Every structure is written in structure tokens, then in C-alpha cells.
């Protein structure tokens, strides 16, 4: 596994998202379509880490972008787009989960509802993709969410803290605990 604090495996996105967002705020429909095309998949993966079933996630991706549309004036020009958008996505996801009475305790999320998992290139041979998916699904939601944001989406812990409304240290602790839990699962499986 990658050491906490480093995300060298994630390729940086082209940083023209703020420019796209400004065009969208100016009323450019094509810019919104471009934003959706580029970010919907990431948002879907993230929403699934919040322990929401696959069918509901599709609706929530749409609701997230609808909320983005209604709140597009709250994006501050020049700021990174993804932390803003993921904070909205998290809000939409948590509202949905709360309204339907689900809780973030160790949800028994069916394996087939887990997102497509990107696996570290050097670990792909050693780790079973299916086992990794199952182990991630078994993690507590906050840790899984933090792990996903950092290692898959490439957010810094500072950005994760702002998205989740916790301190940077708490985000690091959550990620560390999730890594330790994952490691235990694989050690047990190997012995």
C-alpha cells in the first residue's frame, strides 16, 4: 500500500476546471456538459464509498450536479473545483442516507455494488482485485471515504478535511486506520 501522505500514483487532472467553471457561471451550457463528462465518474465512485446502493447512486450523481447547478454562484473563481464539488456531493449523499435511515456503521454493502477499483500497478499482481473490493466494502464508511478521496481521487489531506468538515489530523488518522484495517484483512487472508 502507498504510505499515507503520498499519492504519487494519481495522475493530476488538467487544471482548466476553474476556467470551465467560470464559463459555466457565465451561462455556457457546453461548459457544464464538459464538467459533467469529466467529473461524473469520480463523483459516482465517491458516492459509493458513502455506502449507498448502486441504484440510488445514479440518482444522487444527477442530484449532485443539479445542486451544483443551483449553487453555481457559490463557486469562488480561481479556487479548485473538485473540493467544492465533492463537498456538495458528500452533502447530497449524507442527506440521502440520513433521510432513508441508513447509518455509517459497518454496512454490509453487496460486493457487486462496489465501484470499479483502481489498483496500484505494482500491487495488481499481488492483490486480488475482488478481495480488495470486498475488504474496502467492509471498512467503516468514514475511513473508506477518506481512503478513497486520498488514494483514488488524489486529494490532499487539507482538501479532504475541508470536504469532510474535520481537521487535517483527523483525516490523516482516518486514512491511517483504514489502511491498518485493510492490511489486517489481507494478513489474515494470507495466513
Amino acid at each position: 500500500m502507498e504510505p499515507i501522505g503520498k499519492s504519487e500514483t494519481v495522475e493530476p487532472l488538467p487544471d482548466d476546471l476553474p476556467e470551465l467553471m467560470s464559463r459555466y457561471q457565465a451561462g455556457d451550457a457546453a461548459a457544464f456538459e464538459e464538467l459533467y463528462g469529466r467529473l461524473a465518474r469520480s463523483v459516482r465512485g465517491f458516492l459509493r464509498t458513502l455506502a449507498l446502493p448502486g441504484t440510488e447512486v445514479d440518482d444522487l450523481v444527477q442530484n449532485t450536479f443539479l445542486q451544483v447547478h443551483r449553487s453555481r454562484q457559490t463557486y469562488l473563481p480561481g479556487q479548485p473545483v473538485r473540493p467544492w464539488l465533492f463537498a456538495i456531493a458528500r452533502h447530497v449523499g449524507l442527506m440521502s442516507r440520513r433521510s432513508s435511515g441508513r447509518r455509517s456503521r459497518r454496512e454490509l454493502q453487496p460486493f457487486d455494488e462496489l465501484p470499479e477499483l483502481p489498483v496500484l500497478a505494482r500491487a495488481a499482481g499481488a492483490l486480488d482485485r475482488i478481495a480488495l473490493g470486498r475488504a474496502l466494502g467492509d471498512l467503516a464508511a468514514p475511513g473508506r471515504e477518506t481512503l478513497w478521496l486520498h488514494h483514488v481521487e488524489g486529494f490532499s489531506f487539507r482538501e479532504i478535511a475541508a470536504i469532510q468538515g474535520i481537521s487535517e489530523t483527523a483525516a490523516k488518522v482516518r486514512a491511517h486506520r483504514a489502511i491498518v484495517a485493510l492490511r489486517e484483512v489481507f494478513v489474515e487472508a494470507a495466513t
Partner: protein
Amino acid sequence: MTSPAEGREALPPALREAVRRDLAPVTPLAPPWRRTIFLALPTLLVVVAVLCLLVLRGGAANVFSLAGGGVSLLEWSTGLGLLWLAMREAVPGLGVGAGRALLALSAGVLLQVGLGLLLWWSGGAALSGPAAAAVGAQCATMEGAIGLPHLAIAIWLALRALPIRPRWSGALAGAAAGLLADSVWHLACARNDLEHLLVWHLGATLAMAAVGALSGSLWPRRPGLAG
């Protein structure tokens, strides 16, 4: 590991239609610091005007002491900080989080308690009975009269953004309004006894924080496409 940029998705027709119906250009929200100044600057001007008035009336010694102008400026500065946090908390992705918000609120309360103790030690004489209640009620009323417009504007500024934790945004904005109001009214209130300061002045600030938190909780959530 794959890049999140891989794989693009087509915009669903229902979402495209919803967006197309309302695609007017929007003016981006002003940054948190600018919205903070918008509200706090008029209060500072009032504080400075009252200070000038007191100087003209011959109370320069009191105005330039910690118990006079010093307390006001400290409260104004703390109110400014809380207001800035409330404005930040209201923007997705810039949120300060519940822990830091609680810490900031506690700092605001502790400051007012500390200043109350300082004023009391510097020679506060306690009133008692109906007179104390009458003076206290007058202070609370005046703080409300100064603070409630502040609170209304602060809540409006915070909640017209998209606060992810509206209760915390509201509480921060309310506490800020309370401190800003006290920074003005403190200059007119001659009472320095601890009971008066803690019950009526700090009480007014806490009440405004509670009203702010309540306003945040009642802020309507917008439904999405799926209901």
C-alpha cells in the same frame, strides 16, 4: 492506478433539461473576507464614532484604557474572526468543520468571560435587586437592537451560499453578531460588575448564537431531481 479523468459520461437528458431551463449567467459570490468586511466595517465605524464622541465629551482616559476602547476593539476583532469563519463555513470545500467551529465559539465566549473578569477586578460595584434587573434588561434590549440587524444580515450572507453545516454557520454568525453588538454597547454601559456582564452581556451573545444555530437548522433543503 487509473486517473479519475478517464472515461467520460454523457449528460442525462433529464439533467440537461433541468439545467437548460435555468442557465442564466450568475455573479459569483464575493470571497468570505469581503463579505465579512461588508458587515463588520459599519460596526467598526460606529465604534470609532462613539469613541470620538466620548473623547469630545472629555472621557479620553476611559476611551483609551483597556476597560473602555480596548474591550470594544478586542470584541470587534473577535467578532470579525467569527464572522469570517461563518462565511467560510458557508462555502462548500472551504468549511472549517464542526470541531474548529466549536473551538472558535468557545474562544469567543472565553474572551467575553475574561474581559468580564478583568473589568470586575478593575473596580466593578454590584447592583442588587430590581435595579440590577432593570439595568440588565436595558443592556440586553440594546444589545438585541444593535445585534439583531447584524444577525439578520450575517445569517443572510451565510445562508445564501451553500452551507454544508448550516447550524454551525448560523451559530458562528450569531456569536459574531453578539460580539459586534457588545463592542458598540459596551462603550455606553457603565456597569462593570461580573454578574451584570456575564448574565446580560454574555447572555445576549449566547442568545444570538442560539438564534443563529436555530436559523441554520430551519434553513430549507432543496430537493433534487429524484425528489
